[in-house]
């Protein structure tokens, strides 16, 4: 489904600010995989996602979606295959437009945009039933401007917009990190429900280790631009935070403890 082959990327090469963000990353996701990604600040998690989505181009290596090379495909074209939710709840929606207009924008993701109305009776019914699955009552506020919604509501809407057209790949970059604990839990549960139901191939970055353990069928840990741990299946089910910290120390020969952020 998704293949990342020998990807490397260095920022500001040849200057004092040179920073190797990714080193020889290889990653293969099968259809329906739900992979959680953890790692300390600056490990390269977001950079990897940006390369998959096309927001950044790698120095070397390639990206394949459905056996198709997309390494150089511009971001806007590639996004017909990829649903994304960003960390900032403001980033995934258009605040001056209504809920139904935002959904119509997302609905056109994999279609050619035409001069027909973006919202019609049939679509409105479809949007309503999709919003129903969020259990937030948004289905009764179709013509409310999205700028009026709370952060949690906006993020739930973003999640729906990213997923309801069944993209080939779903990318979530700390999409619960900017929310208070109860809202974060709401979005986490919605994520679980939606991914379970739609069987989307998902890559989710989180700083919350417990979340990374609870969700998904596979977990990878990144550090200093490399994937240092990749645990799937049975082994992932029995994984605990202690085991993860222990593994990190074994591989890196140093404590992860000084980076409190990773504990979420």
């Amino acid at each position, binding site marked *: 489904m998704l293949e990342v082959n020998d990807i490397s990327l260095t920022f500001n090469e040849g200057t004092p600010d040179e920073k190797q963000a990714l080193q020889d990353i290889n990653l293969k996701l099968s259809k329906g995989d739900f992979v959680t990604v953890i790692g300390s600040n600056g490990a390269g998690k977001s950079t990897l996602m940006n390369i998959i*989505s096309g927001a950044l181009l790698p120095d070397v290596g390639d990206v394949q979606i459905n056996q198709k090379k997309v390494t150089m495909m*511009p*971001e*806007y*074209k*590639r*996004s*017909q295959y*990829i649903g*994304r939710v*960003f960390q900032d709840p*403001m*980033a*995934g*929606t*258009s*605040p*001056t*437009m209504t809920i139904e*207009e935002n959904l*119509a*924008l*997302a609905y*056109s*993701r*994999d279609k050619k*945009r*035409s*001069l*027909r*109305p*973006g*919202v019609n009776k049939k679509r409105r019914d479809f949007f309503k039933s999709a919003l129903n699955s969020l259990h937030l009552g948004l289905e009764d506020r179709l013509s409310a401007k999205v700028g009026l919604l709370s952060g949690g509501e906006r993020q739930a809407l973003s999640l729906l*917009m*990213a997923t309801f057209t069944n993209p080939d790949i779903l990318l979530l970059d700390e999409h619960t990190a900017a929310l208070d604990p109860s809202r974060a839990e709401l979005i986490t549960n919605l994520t679980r429900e939606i991914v379970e139901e739609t069987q989307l191939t998902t890559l989710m970055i989180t700083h919350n280790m417990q979340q990374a353990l609870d969700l998904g069928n596979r977990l990878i840990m990144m550090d200093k631009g490399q994937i240092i741990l990749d645990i799937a299946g049975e082994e992932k089910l029995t994984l605990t935070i202690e085991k993860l910290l222990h593994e990190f120390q074994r591989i890196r020969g140093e404590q992860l403890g000084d980076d409190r952020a990773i504990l979420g």
Partner: protein
Amino acid sequence: MFISIFGAIEAGVIYAIMALGVYLSFRVLDFPDLTVDGSFVTGAAVAAIAITHDVSTVLATMLALITGFIAGSVTGLLNTKGKINPLLSGILMMTALYSINLRIMGQSNIPLLNQSTVFTRLSDIWSGLGIDTTLNQGLSAIGASSLPRTWSILIVMLVVTLVIKFITDYYLKTEVGLALRAAGDNEKMIRSFSANTDHLKIMGLGLSNGLVALSGALYAQYVGFADLNMGVGMIVVGLASVIIGESIIGTKSIMRTTFAVILGAILYRIVIALALRSTFLDANDTKLITSVLVILALVIPKLISTHKESKRKRRKRIALQQRAKGEV
């Protein structure tokens, strides 16, 4: 008095098309596009040259629209492909258009007084209909002393402007139109829903300046000449219309906002006409009046809402104090 306001409304309805263009760039795309000062004249120049070369008046006006579209697209190209910031892209294009407009016109002023224009053609057809006599009879019945020469310009331009308004309203609700609005609102987001924001912006600026040039072409035919300098400060006039209209009518929905913009353009012309009737202001002060108008339209609504807010708070405080007294 009545005649000068009547004229202001006529001109306002023609300017409203330009204001709708400014609304598209300034509000919908969030792109402060200064191309307008140039493309308004481009529209006037193309129409004037075409008309003096015996092109049919309607075709000449359409040519102006297309040329304006091209000018706006170039501004869009400069911004998106050339990565030049929006303000500078517009300034560069506006400056370039000054020379281009002179090239098109060949001289700095083209009179159209003895030419047939859309409006002379119109009044030929119109005079046979007898609408003017009816309306003017109505006016004299209510005691108007001076009567307008023809109602044709006002009525037909009102229809044309409203048709453009409804097309704009419809367009902004289509799939492409929604993407265009999103490109002005949250570019990163709409790119993640597979829309090419560069193309959207280029198209949006093209449409915007197409309307501006159309307005310029009609205005030149209305006043009977095209002049190289007739576009100076046009962007501020457009902004004045948008801002005045929005602060009076509001921005609840697209349909309402586009209506506000049209009304703003008419009001703007009326205010200018009234101001120029005063003894101490003359036509050279128009630009100053325009800027003052924009400033007032920006500042007054804010003052009003702060005042309301502080009144509300004072009321609350007093109510609280009185309740406290009552309890003692």
